């Protein structure tokens, strides 16, 4: 716990350190997702934490969307490269699994940007109740609006799309195919 005295002392002693930490955070927050370049990792909910140690080393914590997400390596590279450009020479990117990522962690601005890019944003992630996980034998009952024309008359072509996190749908009104960020 940080007491008022300690906070004051650290603010007096290390304004530069705090500025550096804020800068590292700001830089990390500009890094975008390699597969969804319209979103930052922060908006995607993948960027968990950015810390700067007293010795200047930066530790960034991210969490994968899916266990096998191949973009994690590219995210690490991009974070390190962007921070290196900003003068942070010692950067460690850690990948954590807990708590597991869910689509509910995508921010409001992230959802708007997905829709603007033609990808229907996810609805609320399914809530687990107790007991066995129920089968879903038909198309999900949630309405997915067409990101182009806004029609609610869309159907699922395939639950698996170009990346693990998206499904493929079709709008029956404007007849365009589109991707849907599926709930996880």
């Amino acid at each position, binding site marked *: 716990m940080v007491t008022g005295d300690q906070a004051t002392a650290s603010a007096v002693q290390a304004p530069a350190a705090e500025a550096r930490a804020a800068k590292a955070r700001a830089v990390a927050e500009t890094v975008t997702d390699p597969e969804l370049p319209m979103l930052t990792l922060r908006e995607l909910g993948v960027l968990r934490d950015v810390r700067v140690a007293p010795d200047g*080393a930066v530790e960034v*914590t991210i969490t*994968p969307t*899916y*266990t*096998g*997400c*191949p973009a*994690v*390596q590219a995210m*690490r*590279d*991009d974070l*390190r*490269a*962007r*921070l*290196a*450009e900003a003068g942070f*020479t*010692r*950067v*460690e990117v*850690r*990948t*954590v*699994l*807990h*708590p*597991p*990522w*869910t689509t509910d962690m995508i921010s409001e601005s992230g959802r708007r940007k997905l829709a603007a890019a033609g990808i229907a944003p996810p609805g609320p992630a399914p809530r687990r109740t107790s007991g*066995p*996980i129920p*089968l*879903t*034998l038909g198309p999900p009952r949630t309405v997915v609006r067409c990101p182009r024309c806004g029609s609610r008359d869309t159907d699922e*072509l*395939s*639950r*698996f*799309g*170009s*990346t*693990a996190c998206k499904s*493929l749908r079709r709008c029956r009104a404007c007849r365009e195919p589109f991707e849907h960020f*599926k709930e*996880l």
Partner: protein
Amino acid sequence: MARDDLTADPTGTVGPTAAGAPAGTALDALAEDHGDARWAYGTGFHDPLAGLDTAVPDGVDGDVLAAYCLMLGDDALIMSHRLQEWCAHAPELEEEVALANIALDLLGQARLLLTRAGQADGTGRTEDDLAFLRDAGEFRNVRLVEAPRGDFAFCMVRLLVFATWRLALLDRLTASRDPVLAAAAAKGVKEVAYHRDHAAMWTIRLGDGTAESRRRMLAALDAVWPQVGELFTPHEVERRMAEAGLGVDPSTVRAEFDHVIADVLAEATLPVPDLAAPHEPGRGGRDGVHTAEFDALLAELQSVARAHPGATW
């Protein structure tokens, strides 16, 4: 060792630090950053278990925990391989993408579990060491996953059985006292729920489809069912892990499995096959006793790694 390259360079520095290197673009920074050279067949997580308490919990020794992680990890790895074999063979493009996505999810699960195994048994073997440098007798996957690819009906019936069984196991494993198993299971549950739904919908479409699709589904049920008994026959390792509150005794998920399968097959107008002769304990994949086809699978899976040890690209 090439693997060490993935843990960043010795000073922990990144970026354009070499003398004379221009500072600036992301490309420069990457080009200078030899710390993240990709190993030929490993990528991504330099420490897949970061942020988790990786001490071996009390109640079992590390060898038992490791053996259990190998069982669940090998199931995922080998099932993933058989699904990957559908690339360029699926009946339609959307299905090819779906099968590849499912295979990728399972590969991710395998990587976490194999990493945990190599760490828990104290040998320090990596996920790659375990996937690519073990012989057939050291693999602990059930035999269901090693049967050859078969036709699309076989693929879907096997996936339905596998995903229904694994989802029930992982769902219970989220309560494991081992933080690594619990975290891996929590992620896996969400993924495998999609896999099970996908296989269930195809089972219904094909079982209640044309005369030919139905004929093939009936043949696939006949081919898969003799492997089902093994899934629910607990191995000594699984029993001990369950007793310690760390793992799941697979015999306890049988009722849930039967219930889900009965629902799907009824909807598909397919009969639930009779259970074949019970599995003989001590003579299955969990004991390292595999089928002849498994040798051929491993030869392909491991060929690059064995031909070029430690190669990077």
